[in-house]
């Protein structure tokens, strides 16, 4: 083939792209695919030219030399000669890609006429288009989502909304490959618009919600409408529905039957009325997140093992439903200390269920401090029943405090003060001392 002077110039300029996937074919060798893209005819041979006008070889990657692919192919086929990537080697090429982590693309074929308009010394424009540089394509394989964000409008929109893609990627590694393939107009926008316009979310809530529930973007919109419609049919107000959907991050991912079964369990087993269930779920939407098993375990623990009456269990559930999210073993240990060592009655515990959720070391510290000062007197205590294998909390408990000995009236410590989040208020109002004294006590116990 005789190449014109323009083609010579283009080829010289294209020398910088040598090995980067640019392939120039003569016009006669071009066949069109179904989509109109021109692809090289696999059986056509490149035209012979003089050595100084050697055409670039087959597509090669900018960073990895092609011999790596050839090396791998030789290793699996056992052939001694290098083997180029041809159409019948597509399966081997795919394996090479997966094995070596290299990307391979269809060769881009430019006609001579197209290349005539190209001047690489000037910046690209519609009048001066440059051949495409595959270096801009994100990698086919990556361990993180970062390489794909710059070229994806959808991911950029999620970042601008405030979605923590790093958190989503590291917490759900198998989800990322589906997020990368989402379309902003078809997949993301309709769902977010439904969440804002129909459910009632604020736009500022979307980023944090999608970080906690990235699977939202993969749910079917009609299914989610049905799940929210179920709440509406049960009499929840719009504000309550927003609180439930936001509070229990996977609520719209659960199907209606599952939600109905779990709410039905609350109604049947714990004898809750519909208004009580509504108040309960809107107060703590995560109550049913772990299923009926968790609820049943805690319910039986409180009722049968720790011997709370049914109305006491119900009171605890309505006042502080997070007790039913606790670990059973932790709950038991805390109850044993609160009921048997501090001698708080079950009635008092059921009226202040927060004490069962507090950390045992914190409860122990405050009780032992009050005991040391002789002020461990609570509102409603059970009679002391001597148990042979359970010592008091510490040695001072075996001795009467000076106040007890002199039969002074010890002011009762209210539970609200005992459970106060501030040590300073507890020290000042419950223990009638200074915070520094309590801190010194903490350091030596």
């Amino acid at each position, binding site marked *: 083939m005789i190449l014109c002077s323009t083609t010579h110039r283009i080829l010289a300029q294209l020398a910088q792209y040598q090995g980067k996937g640019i392939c120039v074919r003569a016009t006669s060798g071009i066949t*069109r695919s179904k989509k*109109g*893209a*021109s692809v090289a005819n696999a059986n056509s041979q490149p035209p012979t030219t003089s050595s100084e006008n050697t055409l670039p070889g087959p597509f090669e990657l900018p960073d990895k030399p092609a011999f790596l692919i050839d090396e791998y192919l030789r290793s699996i086929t056992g052939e001694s000669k290098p083997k180029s990537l041809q159409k019948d080697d597509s399966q081997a090429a795919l394996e090479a890609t997966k094995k070596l982590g290299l990307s391979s693309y269809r060769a*881009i*074929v*430019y*006609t001579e006429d*197209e290349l005539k308009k190209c001047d690489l010394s000037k910046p*690209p*424009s519609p009048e001066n*288009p*440059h051949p*495409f*540089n595959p270096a*801009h394509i994100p990698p086919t394989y990556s361990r*993180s*989502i*970062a390489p794909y*964000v*710059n*070229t994806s409008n959808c*991911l*950029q929109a999620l*970042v601008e909304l405030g*979605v923590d893609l*790093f958190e989503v990627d590291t917490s759900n590694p198998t989800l990322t490959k589906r997020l990368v393939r989402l379309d902003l107009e078809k997949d993301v926008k309709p769902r977010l618009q439904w969440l804002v316009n129909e459910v009632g979310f604020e736009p500022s809530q979307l980023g944090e919600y999608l970080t906690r529930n990235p699977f939202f973007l993969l749910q079917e919109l009609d299914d989610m409408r049905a799940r929210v419609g179920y709440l509406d049919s049960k009499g929840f107000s719009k504000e309550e529905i927003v*609180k439930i959907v936001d*509070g229990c991050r996977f609520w719209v991912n659960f199907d209606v039957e599952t939600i109905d079964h779990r709410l039905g369990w609350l109604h049947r087993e714990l004898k809750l009325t519909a208004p009580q269930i509504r108040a309960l779920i809107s107060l*703590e939407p995560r109550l049913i997140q772990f299923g009926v098993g968790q609820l049943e375990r805690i319910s039986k623990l409180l009722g049968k093992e720790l011997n709370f009456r049914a109305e006491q269990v119900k009171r605890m559930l309505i006042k502080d439903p*997070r007790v039913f999210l*606790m*670990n059973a073993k*932790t709950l038991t240990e805390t109850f044993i200390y609160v009921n048997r060592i501090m001698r708080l009655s079950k009635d008092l515990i059921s009226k202040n269920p*927060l004490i069962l*959720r*507090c*950390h045992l*070391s*914190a409860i*122990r*510290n405050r009780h032992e401090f009050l005991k040391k000062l002789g002020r461990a007197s609570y509102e409603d205590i059970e009679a002391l029943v001597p148990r*042979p*294998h359970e*010592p008091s909390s*510490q*040695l001072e408990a*075996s001795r009467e405090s000076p106040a007890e000995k002199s039969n002074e009236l010890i002011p009762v410590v209210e539970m609200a003060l005992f*459970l106060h*989040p501030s*040590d*300073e208020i507890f020290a000042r109002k419950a223990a009638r001392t*200074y915070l*520094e004294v309590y*801190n*010194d006590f*903490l*350091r*030596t*116990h």
Partner: protein
Amino acid sequence: MASSRRLWAALQGVICVHKPADTHLASLKKRIIAQIVEQGNQAWEGRPPKEIELPIVTEGESGAIWITGTKKQPDYSEHPLVVGPMLHPQDVLVEELGDMEPTTSGICLLGLNDGCEQLPGILERAWPSRYRLEGILGRQTVDNEIKGRVMESGQYEPVSRGRMQKVISKMLANFRRLSFELSGVDAQSEAAFEMARKGIPRPSIPGQLLVQKMDLAVWAPPYFALDLTCSGETDATLRNFVLQIGGSVGTVASPTKLIRLGVGPFLPEHALLWKQLNLQNIVRNIAANRKMLTDFKADQSPVFEEAEPVSVVKGLLDTKKLNSADDEEVDAMRPYWGREYEK
């Protein structure tokens, strides 16, 4: 905003923390790392956002793609929401000087980042630790655990205070003899006499349990409490020690409480409480401990001196404050699942 280099340099060292009872050491370390990461990211100098140029790609008439322009956009590949914040929990290394069981409370020395390299040197110094060991006579638990199931009961009434004191004195004498044997000094020699005048010989085998002092602090049968000063101990050996004491007085015994009240020169006043674990206090604690570790360098003396550890100048310590406002931010009761409900 603190300089990131200065902040990271300040987070290298040894911290002294009070571990509460019924708390795993792992959760204490996790809390420290979480506080450093959360507050460190707020204090870390962020990098200015960069812009990149991406090509505008269009399809030509033949279907081949061309670059027909460039556009500028922020570089999202370095956005904190894409690549994560500057500090990550895996960037912070916290290691303990010695293991502490969940039922043990008290002072705990932790190495932070490069400070972990100082821990073997501290171990070699074989600093004596002070403990308060409380126990109960007349019962034995499985594996001598503090919260173990009771497996055996016995009579404790015949045991008197005098008998207990005798047993303790005898045990102390045995430990002293053992320490001379381990130090390789002949007990009848003059060198042994000189060493005994100064104190207890330092063990030549690090890791060997050596009790230097043991006092019966409280005697209220069936409960008793010992104040121990020892080195080369572990929580398990101290718990088993209570059973040995019970056996020596003719009954069984089990531990009820184990509190570490001091490690070498570190006293309870040097320790940070759980509610005081924040970035500022941790940095201050490291700085104070750095001076202490430098002042109390490796003691080459073969003998544990009888001298008490000297308190560091109070001005260096910021852990004791009369108006500790930072305590108010933390819920001291540490409720699971949070205290307040969203209205």
